[in-house]
Protein backbone atom coordinates (compact mmCIF):
# COMPACT_ATOMS: atom_id res chain seq x y z
CA UNK A 1 0.00 0.00 0.00
CA UNK A 2 2.99 2.30 0.25
CA UNK A 3 2.43 3.51 -3.29
CA UNK A 4 -0.82 5.21 -2.24
CA UNK A 5 1.19 8.28 -1.31
CA UNK A 6 2.46 8.56 -4.87
CA UNK A 7 -1.06 8.81 -6.24
CA UNK A 8 -2.63 12.13 -7.05
CA UNK A 9 -5.33 13.55 -4.78
CA UNK A 10 -7.90 12.88 -7.51
CA UNK A 11 -6.87 9.22 -7.73
CA UNK A 12 -6.97 8.77 -3.96
CA UNK A 13 -10.47 10.29 -3.82
CA UNK A 14 -11.57 7.90 -6.58
CA UNK A 15 -9.79 4.94 -4.97
CA UNK A 16 -11.60 5.49 -1.68
CA UNK A 17 -14.92 5.81 -3.49
CA UNK A 18 -14.30 2.61 -5.45
CA UNK A 19 -13.26 0.89 -2.22
CA UNK A 20 -9.82 0.06 -3.63
CA UNK A 21 -8.51 1.16 -0.26
CA UNK A 22 -10.01 2.65 2.89
CA UNK A 23 -9.55 6.11 4.31
CA UNK A 24 -7.76 4.48 7.24
CA UNK A 25 -5.25 2.80 4.93
CA UNK A 26 -4.62 6.09 3.15
CA UNK A 27 -4.24 7.97 6.42
CA UNK A 28 -1.81 5.41 7.82
CA UNK A 29 0.42 5.73 4.77
CA UNK A 30 0.67 9.51 5.08
CA UNK A 31 1.19 9.32 8.84
CA UNK A 32 4.01 6.82 8.32
CA UNK A 33 5.63 9.06 5.71
CA UNK A 34 5.21 12.09 7.95
CA UNK A 35 6.75 10.34 10.95
CA UNK A 36 9.86 9.57 8.92
CA UNK A 37 10.21 13.16 7.73
CA UNK A 38 11.50 14.95 10.86
CA UNK A 39 14.59 16.17 8.99
CA UNK A 40 12.37 18.21 6.67
CA UNK A 41 10.81 20.01 9.67
CA UNK A 42 7.50 20.50 7.88
CA UNK A 43 5.12 19.96 10.80
CA UNK A 44 4.50 22.39 13.63
CA UNK A 45 1.60 20.38 15.05
CA UNK A 46 0.86 16.73 14.27
CA UNK A 47 -2.75 15.58 14.51
CA UNK A 48 -2.09 11.94 13.62
CA UNK A 49 -4.18 10.28 16.35
CA UNK A 50 -7.16 12.51 15.64
CA UNK A 51 -6.74 11.90 11.89
CA UNK A 52 -6.84 8.14 12.40
CA UNK A 53 -10.03 8.44 14.42
CA UNK A 54 -11.58 10.59 11.69
CA UNK A 55 -10.51 8.05 9.05
CA UNK A 56 -12.03 5.16 10.98
CA UNK A 57 -15.24 7.11 11.50
CA UNK A 58 -15.33 7.86 7.80
CA UNK A 59 -14.86 4.21 6.89
CA UNK A 60 -17.79 3.31 9.15
CA UNK A 61 -20.12 5.99 7.78
CA UNK A 62 -19.03 5.63 4.15
CA UNK A 63 -20.33 9.00 3.00
CA UNK A 64 -18.79 9.45 -0.42
CA UNK A 65 -20.68 12.60 -1.37
CA UNK A 66 -17.90 15.09 -0.73
CA UNK A 67 -15.27 16.23 -3.21
CA UNK A 68 -12.62 15.09 -0.72
CA UNK A 69 -14.31 12.14 0.97
CA UNK A 70 -11.99 10.37 3.40
CA UNK A 71 -8.91 12.50 2.62
CA UNK A 72 -6.40 13.41 5.34
CA UNK A 73 -4.81 16.79 4.66
CA UNK A 74 -2.06 18.77 6.37
CA UNK A 75 -2.36 22.55 6.05
CA UNK A 76 -0.35 25.71 6.53
CA UNK A 77 -0.37 26.80 10.17
CA UNK A 78 -1.86 30.14 9.24
CA UNK A 79 -5.42 28.79 9.13
CA UNK A 80 -7.21 28.85 12.46
CA UNK A 81 -8.37 25.38 13.44
CA UNK A 82 -10.84 25.05 16.29
CA UNK A 83 -9.27 23.59 19.44
CA UNK A 84 -5.97 22.97 17.65
CA UNK A 85 -2.96 25.18 18.20
CA UNK A 86 -2.44 27.77 15.46
CA UNK A 87 0.90 29.56 15.55
CA UNK A 88 1.43 31.39 12.22
CA UNK A 89 5.05 30.30 12.66
CA UNK A 90 5.47 32.83 15.48
CA UNK A 91 6.57 32.67 19.08
CA UNK A 92 3.90 35.22 19.91
CA UNK A 93 1.18 32.68 19.00
CA UNK A 94 3.09 29.69 20.31
CA UNK A 95 0.26 28.73 22.68
CA UNK A 96 -2.82 30.01 20.84
CA UNK A 97 -5.82 27.65 20.60
CA UNK A 98 -8.51 29.13 18.33
CA UNK A 99 -12.11 28.91 19.46
CA UNK A 100 -13.26 28.88 15.84
CA UNK A 101 -12.50 27.30 12.47
CA UNK A 102 -11.42 29.23 9.37
CA UNK A 103 -14.00 29.22 6.58
CA UNK A 104 -11.59 27.66 4.07
CA UNK A 105 -10.74 24.71 6.32
CA UNK A 106 -14.41 24.36 7.26
CA UNK A 107 -15.15 24.04 3.54
CA UNK A 108 -12.57 21.25 3.24
CA UNK A 109 -14.00 19.36 6.20
CA UNK A 110 -17.53 19.70 4.86
CA UNK A 111 -16.29 18.05 1.65
CA UNK A 112 -15.16 15.02 3.66
CA UNK A 113 -11.50 15.85 4.37
CA UNK A 114 -9.97 15.92 7.86
CA UNK A 115 -6.88 17.44 9.43
CA UNK A 116 -3.56 15.60 9.44
CA UNK A 117 -1.51 18.43 10.92
CA UNK A 118 -0.38 22.04 10.81
CA UNK A 119 2.56 22.89 8.58
CA UNK A 120 5.49 25.19 9.12
CA UNK A 121 5.61 28.58 7.42
CA UNK A 122 7.48 31.86 7.57
CA UNK A 123 6.48 33.89 10.62
CA UNK A 124 3.14 35.55 9.85
CA UNK A 125 3.76 34.48 6.23
CA UNK A 126 6.53 37.10 5.94
CA UNK A 127 9.35 35.50 4.05
CA UNK A 128 10.33 33.74 0.84
CA UNK A 129 12.40 30.85 2.20
CA UNK A 130 10.72 29.62 5.38
CA UNK A 131 13.76 30.82 7.30
CA UNK A 132 11.80 33.34 9.40
CA UNK A 133 9.70 30.69 11.20
CA UNK A 134 10.09 30.53 14.98
CA UNK A 135 9.96 26.75 14.51
CA UNK A 136 13.05 26.62 12.32
CA UNK A 137 13.86 26.17 8.64
CA UNK A 138 11.91 23.80 6.49
CA UNK A 139 14.06 21.71 4.17
CA UNK A 140 13.31 21.20 0.49
CA UNK A 141 13.17 17.50 -0.51
CA UNK A 142 15.42 18.53 -3.42
CA UNK A 143 18.39 18.98 -1.11
CA UNK A 144 19.42 19.00 2.52
CA UNK A 145 20.66 22.59 2.37
CA UNK A 146 18.01 23.94 0.02
CA UNK A 147 15.11 26.19 1.07
CA UNK A 148 11.57 25.18 0.05
CA UNK A 149 10.62 28.78 -0.66
CA UNK A 150 8.08 30.66 1.38
CA UNK A 151 6.03 31.57 3.03
CA UNK A 152 4.08 28.32 2.44
CA UNK A 153 7.35 26.37 2.61
CA UNK A 154 6.16 23.66 4.99
CA UNK A 155 3.16 23.05 2.75
CA UNK A 156 5.28 22.82 -0.40
CA UNK A 157 7.85 20.50 1.17
CA UNK A 158 5.24 18.24 2.74
CA UNK A 159 3.42 17.96 -0.56
CA UNK A 160 6.54 17.24 -2.62
CA UNK A 161 7.76 14.69 -0.05
CA UNK A 162 4.36 12.91 -0.11
CA UNK A 163 3.50 13.62 3.52
CA UNK A 164 0.02 14.83 2.53
CA UNK A 165 -2.04 14.15 -0.62
CA UNK A 166 -2.48 17.89 -1.19
CA UNK A 167 -2.33 21.03 0.91
CA UNK A 168 -3.41 24.61 1.15
CA UNK A 169 -1.36 27.74 1.58
CA UNK A 170 -1.78 31.49 1.49
CA UNK A 171 -0.30 33.95 -0.97
CA UNK A 172 0.25 37.64 -0.19
CA UNK A 173 3.13 38.30 -2.60
CA UNK A 174 3.90 34.87 -4.03
CA UNK A 175 3.78 32.63 -0.96
CA UNK A 176 2.00 29.80 -2.76
CA UNK A 177 3.48 30.11 -6.25
CA UNK A 178 7.14 30.61 -5.32
CA UNK A 179 7.40 27.55 -3.02
CA UNK A 180 5.41 25.52 -5.56
CA UNK A 181 7.96 26.51 -8.17
CA UNK A 182 10.85 25.63 -5.82
CA UNK A 183 9.48 22.14 -5.08
CA UNK A 184 8.13 21.03 -8.45
CA UNK A 185 4.50 21.28 -7.43
CA UNK A 186 1.41 23.16 -8.60
CA UNK A 187 0.23 26.19 -6.63
CA UNK A 188 -2.61 28.57 -7.40
CA UNK A 189 -3.44 31.96 -5.95
CA UNK A 190 -7.13 32.57 -6.63
CA UNK A 191 -8.68 35.93 -7.49
CA UNK A 192 -8.87 38.19 -4.45
CA UNK A 193 -12.28 37.44 -2.95
CA UNK A 194 -12.64 33.88 -4.32
CA UNK A 195 -11.73 32.26 -0.99
CA UNK A 196 -12.78 33.63 2.36
CA UNK A 197 -10.04 35.16 4.48
CA UNK A 198 -12.07 34.60 7.63
CA UNK A 199 -10.05 32.74 10.23
CA UNK A 200 -6.74 33.12 8.41
CA UNK A 201 -4.13 34.90 10.51
CA UNK A 202 -3.98 38.27 8.74
CA UNK A 203 -0.80 39.65 7.19
CA UNK A 204 -1.82 42.21 4.54
CA UNK A 205 -5.58 42.13 4.16
CA UNK A 206 -5.86 43.66 0.69
CA UNK A 207 -3.37 41.11 -0.71
CA UNK A 208 -3.86 37.87 1.28
CA UNK A 209 -5.60 34.99 -0.45
CA UNK A 210 -5.73 31.27 0.31
CA UNK A 211 -5.17 28.71 -2.41
CA UNK A 212 -4.50 25.07 -3.29
CA UNK A 213 -1.08 23.39 -3.59
CA UNK A 214 -1.14 20.04 -5.33
CA UNK A 215 0.82 17.43 -7.26
CA UNK A 216 -0.85 18.19 -10.56
CA UNK A 217 -3.29 20.54 -12.28
CA UNK A 218 -6.26 18.18 -12.04
CA UNK A 219 -5.87 18.08 -8.24
CA UNK A 220 -5.54 21.85 -8.19
CA UNK A 221 -8.91 22.27 -9.91
CA UNK A 222 -10.52 19.87 -7.45
CA UNK A 223 -9.08 21.47 -4.32
CA UNK A 224 -9.82 25.01 -5.53
CA UNK A 225 -13.43 24.02 -6.00
CA UNK A 226 -13.57 22.51 -2.51
CA UNK A 227 -12.10 25.50 -0.70
CA UNK A 228 -13.75 28.40 -2.55
CA UNK A 229 -16.93 30.06 -1.36
CA UNK A 230 -18.65 33.34 -0.76
CA UNK A 231 -18.59 34.04 2.95
CA UNK A 232 -20.66 36.71 4.69
CA UNK A 233 -18.00 36.73 7.42
CA UNK A 234 -15.45 38.16 4.96
CA UNK A 235 -16.86 41.35 3.50
CA UNK A 236 -14.29 41.22 0.69
CA UNK A 237 -15.26 37.73 -0.44
CA UNK A 238 -17.30 37.89 -3.62
CA UNK A 239 -20.69 36.33 -4.19
CA UNK A 240 -19.93 34.62 -7.51
CA UNK A 241 -20.83 31.01 -8.17
CA UNK A 242 -17.95 28.58 -7.65
CA UNK A 243 -17.22 26.85 -10.96
CA UNK A 244 -17.00 23.12 -11.34
CA UNK A 245 -13.35 23.57 -12.27
CA UNK A 246 -12.71 19.81 -12.48
CA UNK A 247 -15.46 18.95 -14.93
CA UNK A 248 -14.60 21.95 -17.12
CA UNK A 249 -10.88 21.20 -17.07
CA UNK A 250 -9.55 20.71 -20.59
CA UNK A 251 -6.21 20.93 -22.34
CA UNK A 252 -7.94 22.28 -25.42
CA UNK A 253 -6.70 25.83 -25.44
CA UNK A 254 -6.65 26.39 -29.19
CA UNK A 255 -7.13 30.02 -30.15
CA UNK A 256 -6.59 31.42 -26.66
CA UNK A 257 -4.45 34.55 -26.74
CA UNK A 258 -1.43 34.52 -24.45
CA UNK A 259 0.40 37.70 -23.53
CA UNK A 260 4.17 37.76 -23.07
CA UNK A 261 5.10 40.88 -21.09
CA UNK A 262 8.46 42.26 -22.17
CA UNK A 263 9.05 43.92 -18.78
CA UNK A 264 9.41 40.51 -17.13
CA UNK A 265 12.68 39.99 -18.98
CA UNK A 266 14.58 41.51 -16.05
CA UNK A 267 18.28 42.37 -15.79
CA UNK A 268 20.51 39.52 -14.66
CA UNK A 269 17.82 36.94 -15.36
CA UNK A 270 19.55 33.57 -15.61
CA UNK A 271 19.67 32.15 -19.14
CA UNK A 272 17.90 29.05 -17.87
CA UNK A 273 14.87 31.05 -16.80
CA UNK A 274 14.73 32.75 -20.15
CA UNK A 275 14.93 29.46 -22.03
CA UNK A 276 12.28 27.95 -19.73
CA UNK A 277 10.00 30.83 -20.64
CA UNK A 278 10.66 30.25 -24.35
CA UNK A 279 9.83 26.57 -23.89
CA UNK A 280 6.58 27.58 -22.22
CA UNK A 281 5.74 29.73 -25.22
CA UNK A 282 6.47 26.76 -27.52
CA UNK A 283 4.29 24.42 -25.45
CA UNK A 284 1.35 26.80 -25.67
CA UNK A 285 1.93 27.41 -29.40
CA UNK A 286 1.95 23.65 -29.86
CA UNK A 287 -1.39 23.53 -28.04
CA UNK A 288 -2.78 26.03 -30.53
CA UNK A 289 -2.66 29.17 -28.42
CA UNK A 290 -1.80 32.48 -30.04
CA UNK A 291 1.18 34.33 -28.58
CA UNK A 292 1.10 38.13 -28.33
CA UNK A 293 3.76 40.47 -27.06
CA UNK A 294 2.35 42.84 -24.48
CA UNK A 295 3.63 45.57 -22.21
CA UNK A 296 3.07 45.99 -18.48
CA UNK A 297 5.06 49.22 -18.18
CA UNK A 298 4.82 49.66 -14.40
CA UNK A 299 6.16 46.20 -13.51
CA UNK A 300 9.42 47.59 -12.11
CA UNK A 301 7.45 49.57 -9.54
CA UNK A 302 5.52 46.58 -8.21
CA UNK A 303 8.01 45.43 -5.58
CA UNK A 304 8.63 48.89 -4.07
CA UNK A 305 4.85 49.42 -4.01
CA UNK A 306 4.37 46.06 -2.32
CA UNK A 307 6.96 46.92 0.32
CA UNK A 308 4.91 49.93 1.31
CA UNK A 309 1.40 48.46 1.10
CA UNK A 310 2.12 45.07 2.71
CA UNK A 311 4.11 46.36 5.73
CA UNK A 312 1.58 49.17 6.26
CA UNK A 313 -1.28 46.69 6.45
CA UNK A 314 0.83 44.29 8.51
CA UNK A 315 1.70 46.96 11.07
CA UNK A 316 -2.02 47.54 11.68
CA UNK A 317 -2.96 43.87 11.61
CA UNK A 318 -0.22 42.88 14.02
CA UNK A 319 -1.12 45.59 16.51
CA UNK A 320 -3.46 43.04 18.10
CA UNK A 321 -0.56 41.01 19.53
CA UNK A 322 -0.20 42.74 22.86
CA UNK A 323 0.10 39.88 25.35
CA UNK A 324 -3.34 40.48 26.85
CA UNK A 325 -5.99 38.22 25.32
CA UNK A 326 -3.85 35.45 23.87
CA UNK A 327 -0.33 34.53 22.94
CA UNK A 328 3.03 35.15 24.51
CA UNK A 329 3.40 37.71 27.29
CA UNK A 330 6.63 39.17 28.65
CA UNK A 331 7.08 40.87 32.00
CA UNK A 332 6.98 44.63 32.34
CA UNK A 333 6.76 47.14 35.19
CA UNK A 334 3.72 48.76 33.67
CA UNK A 335 1.26 48.16 30.85
CA UNK A 336 3.27 49.91 28.14
CA UNK A 337 6.47 48.15 29.13
CA UNK A 338 4.62 44.85 29.09
CA UNK A 339 3.40 45.54 25.52
CA UNK A 340 6.86 46.58 24.36
CA UNK A 341 8.64 43.61 25.88
CA UNK A 342 6.00 41.17 24.71
CA UNK A 343 6.28 42.32 21.11
CA UNK A 344 10.06 42.47 21.29
CA UNK A 345 10.30 38.89 22.55
CA UNK A 346 7.39 37.54 20.53
CA UNK A 347 8.22 38.78 17.02
CA UNK A 348 11.23 37.70 14.96
CA UNK A 349 13.53 40.01 13.02
CA UNK A 350 11.71 40.04 9.67
CA UNK A 351 8.35 40.72 11.32
CA UNK A 352 9.89 43.57 13.33
CA UNK A 353 11.38 45.04 10.17
CA UNK A 354 8.04 45.00 8.42
CA UNK A 355 6.08 46.38 11.36
CA UNK A 356 8.57 49.23 11.64
CA UNK A 357 8.54 49.98 7.89
CA UNK A 358 4.74 49.94 8.02
CA UNK A 359 4.66 52.19 11.07
CA UNK A 360 7.07 54.58 9.40
CA UNK A 361 5.21 54.91 6.09
CA UNK A 362 1.93 55.47 7.91
CA UNK A 363 3.33 57.88 10.48
CA UNK A 364 2.40 61.52 10.62
CA UNK A 365 4.03 63.54 7.86
CA UNK A 366 4.97 60.54 5.71
CA UNK A 367 1.58 59.11 4.77
CA UNK A 368 1.23 61.06 1.51
CA UNK A 369 4.81 60.53 0.44
CA UNK A 370 4.71 56.77 0.85
CA UNK A 371 1.36 55.09 1.42
CA UNK A 372 -0.74 57.35 -0.78
CA UNK A 373 1.95 57.32 -3.44
CA UNK A 374 2.00 53.51 -3.34
CA UNK A 375 -1.77 53.29 -3.72
CA UNK A 376 -1.53 55.51 -6.80
CA UNK A 377 1.17 53.33 -8.32
CA UNK A 378 -0.87 50.28 -7.41
CA UNK A 379 -3.68 51.71 -9.53
CA UNK A 380 -1.26 52.12 -12.45
CA UNK A 381 -0.07 48.52 -12.07
CA UNK A 382 -3.66 47.30 -12.08
CA UNK A 383 -4.45 49.48 -15.11
CA UNK A 384 -1.60 47.79 -17.00
CA UNK A 385 -3.23 44.41 -16.46
CA UNK A 386 -6.75 45.68 -17.22
CA UNK A 387 -5.52 47.06 -20.53
CA UNK A 388 -3.64 43.87 -21.43
CA UNK A 389 -6.64 41.72 -20.68
CA UNK A 390 -8.62 43.51 -23.37
CA UNK A 391 -6.16 41.93 -25.83
CA UNK A 392 -5.22 38.58 -24.28
CA UNK A 393 -6.89 35.79 -22.27
CA UNK A 394 -3.92 35.03 -20.01
CA UNK A 395 -0.31 36.04 -19.43
CA UNK A 396 2.69 33.69 -19.31
CA UNK A 397 5.80 34.48 -17.25
CA UNK A 398 8.39 32.57 -15.25
CA UNK A 399 7.25 32.00 -11.64
CA UNK A 400 10.55 33.03 -10.06
CA UNK A 401 13.79 34.67 -11.20
CA UNK A 402 15.82 31.64 -10.01
CA UNK A 403 15.50 28.12 -8.68
CA UNK A 404 15.56 27.36 -4.93
CA UNK A 405 18.62 28.77 -3.14
CA UNK A 406 20.67 27.57 -0.21
CA UNK A 407 19.71 28.14 3.41
CA UNK A 408 21.38 31.32 4.66
CA UNK A 409 22.19 32.65 1.18
CA UNK A 410 19.85 35.62 1.34
CA UNK A 411 19.18 36.17 5.04
CA UNK A 412 21.70 38.98 5.44
CA UNK A 413 20.21 41.18 2.77
CA UNK A 414 16.44 41.74 2.97
CA UNK A 415 16.30 43.25 -0.53
CA UNK A 416 17.88 40.21 -2.20
CA UNK A 417 15.25 38.08 -0.45
CA UNK A 418 12.44 40.39 -1.57
CA UNK A 419 13.57 40.16 -5.22
CA UNK A 420 12.42 36.53 -5.24
CA UNK A 421 8.87 37.74 -5.56
CA UNK A 422 9.46 40.05 -8.50
CA UNK A 423 7.20 38.04 -10.88
CA UNK A 424 4.52 37.14 -8.35
CA UNK A 425 3.90 40.39 -6.48
CA UNK A 426 2.20 42.37 -9.32
CA UNK A 427 -0.57 39.74 -9.35
CA UNK A 428 -1.42 40.29 -5.67
CA UNK A 429 -1.37 44.05 -6.08
CA UNK A 430 -3.94 43.64 -8.87
CA UNK A 431 -6.08 40.98 -7.19
CA UNK A 432 -5.71 38.55 -10.12
CA UNK A 433 -5.59 34.75 -10.16
CA UNK A 434 -2.28 33.08 -11.06
CA UNK A 435 -0.85 29.59 -11.02
CA UNK A 436 2.66 28.15 -10.98
CA UNK A 437 3.11 24.88 -12.85
CA UNK A 438 6.32 22.81 -12.91
CA UNK A 439 8.07 23.23 -16.26
CA UNK A 440 11.53 21.70 -15.95
CA UNK A 441 14.84 21.62 -14.10
CA UNK A 442 17.87 23.86 -14.00
CA UNK A 443 21.47 22.67 -14.30
CA UNK A 444 21.54 21.82 -10.59
CA UNK A 445 18.52 19.55 -10.91
CA UNK A 446 16.27 21.99 -9.11
CA UNK A 447 12.70 22.50 -10.34
CA UNK A 448 11.51 25.63 -12.12
CA UNK A 449 7.96 26.81 -12.65
CA UNK A 450 6.00 28.82 -15.17
CA UNK A 451 3.33 31.27 -14.08
CA UNK A 452 0.02 31.88 -15.84
CA UNK A 453 -1.92 34.99 -14.84
CA UNK A 454 -5.64 35.16 -15.57
CA UNK A 455 -8.51 37.61 -15.67
CA UNK A 456 -10.44 38.12 -12.42
CA UNK A 457 -12.45 34.98 -11.58
CA UNK A 458 -11.17 33.19 -14.67
CA UNK A 459 -9.23 30.51 -12.78
CA UNK A 460 -10.56 28.01 -15.32
CA UNK A 461 -8.54 29.40 -18.23
CA UNK A 462 -5.24 29.37 -16.35
CA UNK A 463 -5.96 25.85 -15.09
CA UNK A 464 -6.63 24.71 -18.66
CA UNK A 465 -3.47 26.35 -19.98
CA UNK A 466 -1.48 24.80 -17.13
CA UNK A 467 -2.87 21.41 -18.04
CA UNK A 468 -1.72 21.94 -21.63
CA UNK A 469 1.77 22.78 -20.33
CA UNK A 470 1.77 19.91 -17.84
CA UNK A 471 0.95 17.35 -20.57
CA UNK A 472 3.85 18.62 -22.66
CA UNK A 473 6.44 18.95 -19.90
CA UNK A 474 5.74 15.53 -18.41
CA UNK A 475 7.46 16.66 -15.21
CA UNK A 476 8.77 13.89 -12.95
CA UNK A 477 10.18 14.43 -9.49
CA UNK A 478 13.85 13.52 -9.38
CA UNK A 479 14.89 13.25 -5.75
CA UNK A 480 15.37 10.23 -3.55
CA UNK A 481 13.76 10.14 -0.14
CA UNK A 482 17.10 10.89 1.54
CA UNK A 483 15.47 12.03 4.78
CA UNK A 484 13.95 8.64 5.67
Amino acid at each position, binding site marked *: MSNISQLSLTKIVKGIKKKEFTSEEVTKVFIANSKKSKKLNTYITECFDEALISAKNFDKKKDYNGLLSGIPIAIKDLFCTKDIKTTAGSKILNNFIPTYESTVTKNLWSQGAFLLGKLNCDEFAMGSSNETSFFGNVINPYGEKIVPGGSSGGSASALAAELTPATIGTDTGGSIRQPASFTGTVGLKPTYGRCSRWGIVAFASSLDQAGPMTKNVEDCALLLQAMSSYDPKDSTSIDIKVENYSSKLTEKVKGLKIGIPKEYRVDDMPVEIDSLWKKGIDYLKDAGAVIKNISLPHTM*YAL*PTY*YIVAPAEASSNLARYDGV*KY*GHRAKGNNLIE*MYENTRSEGFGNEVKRRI*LIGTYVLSSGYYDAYYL*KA*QKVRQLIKNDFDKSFTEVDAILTPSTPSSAFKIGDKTDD*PISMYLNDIFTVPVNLSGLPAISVPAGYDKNNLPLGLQLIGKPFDEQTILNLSLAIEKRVNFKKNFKNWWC
Partner: protein
Amino acid sequence: MSIDKDTVKHISKLAKISLDEKKISDLSKDLSSIMKFIEKLNKLNTDNITPLTSIINASLKSRIDEVNDGKIRDQILKNSPENNEEFFVVPKVID
Protein backbone atom coordinates in the same frame (compact mmCIF):
# COMPACT_ATOMS: atom_id res chain seq x y z
CA MET B 1 15.73 58.62 2.96
CA SER B 2 17.99 56.98 5.49
CA ILE B 3 16.44 55.94 8.77
CA ASP B 4 18.77 57.03 11.55
CA LYS B 5 18.85 55.52 15.02
CA ASP B 6 16.64 58.23 16.51
CA THR B 7 13.98 57.55 13.89
CA VAL B 8 14.16 53.82 14.63
CA LYS B 9 13.70 54.62 18.32
CA HIS B 10 10.73 56.86 17.53
CA ILE B 11 8.90 54.36 15.32
CA SER B 12 9.64 51.46 17.66
CA LYS B 13 7.93 53.49 20.40
CA LEU B 14 4.94 53.99 18.10
CA ALA B 15 4.93 50.27 17.26
CA LYS B 16 5.40 49.28 20.92
CA ILE B 17 8.46 47.14 20.33
CA SER B 18 11.37 47.54 22.73
CA LEU B 19 14.81 47.34 21.11
CA ASP B 20 18.34 47.24 22.48
CA GLU B 21 21.14 49.40 21.03
CA LYS B 22 22.48 46.61 18.80
CA LYS B 23 19.03 45.98 17.31
CA ILE B 24 18.48 49.70 16.78
CA SER B 25 21.72 49.93 14.88
CA ASP B 26 20.98 46.81 12.76
CA LEU B 27 17.49 48.03 11.99
CA SER B 28 18.72 51.49 11.05
CA LYS B 29 20.88 49.84 8.38
CA ASP B 30 18.16 47.41 7.17
CA LEU B 31 15.35 49.95 7.11
CA SER B 32 17.50 52.50 5.29
CA SER B 33 18.23 50.04 2.50
CA ILE B 34 14.55 49.07 2.29
CA MET B 35 13.50 52.74 2.14
CA LYS B 36 16.08 53.40 -0.56
CA PHE B 37 14.56 50.55 -2.55
CA ILE B 38 11.05 51.90 -1.99
CA GLU B 39 12.01 55.38 -3.08
CA LYS B 40 12.29 54.21 -6.69
CA LEU B 41 8.64 55.18 -6.77
CA ASN B 42 9.59 58.85 -6.61
CA LYS B 43 10.79 58.60 -10.19
CA LEU B 44 7.25 58.00 -11.31
CA ASN B 45 4.89 60.90 -11.88
CA THR B 46 1.53 60.12 -10.29
CA ASP B 47 -0.14 63.51 -10.56
CA ASN B 48 -3.85 63.15 -11.31
CA ILE B 49 -3.86 59.43 -10.54
CA THR B 50 -6.61 58.35 -8.19
CA PRO B 51 -5.19 56.12 -5.48
CA LEU B 52 -6.51 52.58 -5.49
CA THR B 53 -8.74 51.99 -2.50
CA SER B 54 -10.14 48.58 -3.37
CA ILE B 55 -9.20 45.91 -5.88
CA ILE B 56 -12.74 44.57 -5.83
CA ASN B 57 -15.07 45.95 -8.44
CA ALA B 58 -18.18 44.87 -6.56
CA SER B 59 -19.54 46.93 -3.71
CA LEU B 60 -19.12 45.33 -0.34
CA LYS B 61 -22.12 43.44 0.95
CA SER B 62 -23.42 44.26 4.36
CA ARG B 63 -25.08 41.75 6.64
CA ILE B 64 -27.49 41.99 9.50
CA ASP B 65 -25.62 42.83 12.65
CA GLU B 66 -26.69 40.03 14.90
CA VAL B 67 -25.00 37.80 17.43
CA ASN B 68 -24.42 34.36 15.95
CA ASP B 69 -21.96 32.95 18.41
CA GLY B 70 -20.95 33.68 21.97
CA LYS B 71 -21.21 32.02 25.35
CA ILE B 72 -17.59 30.93 25.02
CA ARG B 73 -16.11 33.24 27.64
CA ASP B 74 -14.20 30.50 29.39
CA GLN B 75 -12.66 29.17 26.18
CA ILE B 76 -11.55 32.67 25.20
CA LEU B 77 -10.13 33.39 28.64
CA LYS B 78 -8.20 30.13 28.50
CA ASN B 79 -5.97 31.67 25.81
CA SER B 80 -5.00 34.65 27.92
CA PRO B 81 -1.62 34.69 29.64
CA GLU B 82 -3.20 35.95 32.86
CA ASN B 83 -6.83 36.09 33.89
CA ASN B 84 -9.08 35.72 36.86
CA GLU B 85 -12.55 34.22 36.62
CA GLU B 86 -14.07 36.77 34.30
CA PHE B 87 -11.37 39.22 33.31
CA PHE B 88 -8.13 39.58 31.43
CA VAL B 89 -5.47 40.72 33.88
CA VAL B 90 -2.88 43.36 32.92
CA PRO B 91 -0.23 45.24 34.92
CA LYS B 92 -1.66 48.03 37.05
CA VAL B 93 -2.65 51.05 34.93
CA ILE B 94 -3.80 53.54 37.61
CA ASP B 95 -1.88 54.24 40.81
